[in-house]
């Protein structure tokens, strides 16, 4: 091996666009082949999906320029060669998707509630909000305001809950379920860790029972069995019955998440609080829970995402949430066969909410730098 070593070329660029492409897309032969194959598939798929959803789609008018009022007027039904999605169904039924069958005269109340909800959530989501304390007072009284605003009373005309629907029901179920499950979950978590054997056993049984059965059976329980348990004359509203089931379900999951947070608190905190002579409740309220809840916020948001998605199950017991309105629209002969458009729209709305929540949970996780994944089940 006396021949001179070949002079090596300088290393290929590892910075800049070319370097990036080389490392991430064309690292070796198999990698390059995979990349080319994926690009080919995307080249086939993306123009088609863009054409269907946007370029050939009808939004309000069909290709003849008429305003679409039923599915027969969609471009693709007039001329199968010409036309993609028919978004006009969303345009025409938009009111129902957002408010259900809420009377049009009273709809400002729903809009006001939506705006107030945003303001009520603000101090919870953003800790550095100026005047956060005052915003929080508003958050505490918001449920009462929202109840009277949406349901009626205090001078507002009553709008019975069977007129509610669409996004309104989805948000009411999701927000109320999460808000009610939070305190119940805390109590259950404390109860499960209690030193009193009877209380601990009852809480454990409750939590494990709820977590062992599907939500749909709890919804059936609320719909079919709850009326049998109550004395005559007490007629519970359908939405309330569903809310009871959803809250029971969510509080068991919330309890497990908070228990994870409680377990992460070092025993020294308990001992220090007790040595100061604090009672059980003072110790938990002032020392333990604030720390435990802080570290379990990311998993709390994750279970809340789960609940938000699970609210769609109420359509099985006949409550018209966003998906329910979508199914109802499909059953209408005017809009038969537009299932892809409707399901696409409903998915998109859910995606915006849940994806937003999951990004927020990631942001919190980074901020808290807990790095522990508790109660992720």
């Amino acid at each position: 091996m006396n021949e001179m070593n070949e002079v090596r070329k300088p290393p290929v660029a590892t910075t800049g666009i070319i370097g990036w492409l080389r490392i991430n897309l064309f690292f070796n032969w198999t990698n390059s082949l995979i990349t080319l194959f994926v690009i080919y598939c995307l080249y086939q798929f993306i123009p088609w999906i863009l054409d269907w959803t946007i370029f050939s789609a009808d939004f309000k008018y069909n290709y003849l320029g008429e305003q679409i009022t039923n599915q027969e007027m969609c471009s693709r039904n007039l001329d199968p060669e010409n036309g993609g999605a028919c978004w006009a169904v969303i345009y025409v039924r938009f009111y129902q998707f957002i408010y259900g069958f809420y009377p049009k005269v009273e709809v400002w109340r729903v809009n006001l509630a939506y705006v107030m909800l945003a303001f009520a959530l603000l101090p919870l989501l953003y800790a550095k909000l100026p005047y956060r304390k005052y915003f929080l007072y508003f958050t505490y009284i918001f449920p009462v305001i929202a109840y009277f605003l949406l349901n009626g009373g205090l001078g507002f005309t009553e709008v019975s809950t069977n007129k509610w629907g669409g996004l309104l029901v989805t948000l009411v179920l999701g927000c109320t379920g999460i808000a009610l499950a939070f305190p119940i979950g805390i109590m259950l978590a404390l109860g499960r860790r209690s030193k009193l054997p009877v209380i601990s056993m009852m809480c454990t049984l409750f939590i494990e029972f709820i977590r062992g059965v599907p939500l749909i059976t709890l919804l059936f329980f609320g719909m079919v069995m709850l009326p049998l348990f109550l004395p005559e004359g007490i007629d519970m509203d359908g939405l309330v019955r569903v809310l009871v089931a959803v809250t029971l379900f969510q509080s068991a999951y919330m309890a497990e998440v908070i228990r994870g947070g409680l377990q992460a608190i070092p025993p020294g905190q308990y001992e220090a609080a007790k040595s100061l002579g604090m009672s059980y409740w003072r110790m938990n309220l002032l020392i333990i829970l604030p720390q435990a809840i802080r570290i379990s916020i990311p998993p709390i948001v994750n279970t809340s995402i789960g609940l938000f998605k699970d609210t769609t199950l109420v359509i099985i017991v006949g409550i018209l949430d966003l998906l329910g309105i979508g199914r109802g629209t499909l059953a209408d002969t005017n809009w038969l066969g537009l299932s892809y458009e409707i399901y696409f729209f409903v998915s998109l709305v859910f995606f915006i909410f849940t994806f937003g929540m999951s990004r927020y949970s990631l942001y919190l996780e980074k901020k808290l730098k807990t790095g522990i994944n508790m109660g992720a089940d």
Partner: protein
Amino acid sequence: MRSNLGFFSDEKFRSIFFQTLVVGLFALGLFFVISTTSYNLEKRNIATGWSFLQNPAGFDISFSPFLEFKSTDTHLKVYFVGVLNTLLVSVTGCIAATILGFILGIVRLSSNWLLSRLVYIYVEFSRNVPLLLQIILWYSILIQLPRVKQSLQVLDVFYISNRGLYSPRPIFESGFSYVSIAIVLALISSFLINRWAKKRQDKTGQQFPVFSSSIGLIFIVPLILFFILGSPLSFEHPELKGFNFKGGLVIRPEFIAMFLALSIYTAAFISEIVRAGIMSVSKGQREASAAIGLKQTWIMRLIIIPQALRVIVPPLTSQYLNLTKNSSLGIAVGYADLVHGFGGISLNQTGQAIECMAIVMATYLSISLTISFFMNIYNRSIQFKEK
């Protein structure tokens, strides 16, 4: 410093007092619920007790692959058909979700940026859209397939139409039992060979071709036996008669929709679990195994995956539990599982809501407990063994 209520600050007394109070309130509540319920049931003329299980159901179940079901069969049989259908979609869903989830989790970590981004987009979309919506969407795609008369033909033997997938039904003839016995024996012996080879490798360092010998035992020996016995297996092909297919094996669109939606949805969660598990194995492990000259595939199989499994299995268990519970959504597309068949139609026909729901809930609880039990055993077997 004792207050006037001296006995109340005694911890023991307080503990007994509160627990008695809670039990008392609970018993009171229970008594109230039971008495109002029995009054309500009497007033609405709803029978109680379990005798309804023996009454004929009076309705048909369209999908019952394991048990023959007629409308004259009892509600008890509806229950068994439901349990079997629930288990069928849960087990097949769990298997498919695990395979897909592992592949996607590994691909997500691939050095190919485009590929890993694609998987990321899939995971985010699949996780953030409600499962019920996905089930309904798959179902609506499947029932828009061509009608039976124009059904798509795949490989000349499968027919796909809006009534489902028709495939040939295997008919086992008398000699086939020997072949199945041979397969079982081969499985047992390859398991024993695996254990023996591991022991020998630990002792002497010699390797034994476990994989190829197991393949030989499991596939080739039964296959030879199969031909010696004169191929005791034939297929009944589906035939188009009138408006529908006769014969063959039919997989209904309800099942396919449930299976696709459940496995694709859960696979997204599993892929994230697998990704987290693989990332939890420290970089040094990979570098060390590369330094001693292991091939890339071997590094994955022998070093990374066994260590990652310790992190993966506990959350994987809860995904299996979730999938099983989510299989109850079959009611939305009319898949005759436990909730739809027994908790839905039987409940409506008999009106015995309490009994039906109690049975359904108890069944789900026992399925959940069984899954946790076996997964805990598996989890213990893969954890670090302290020597």
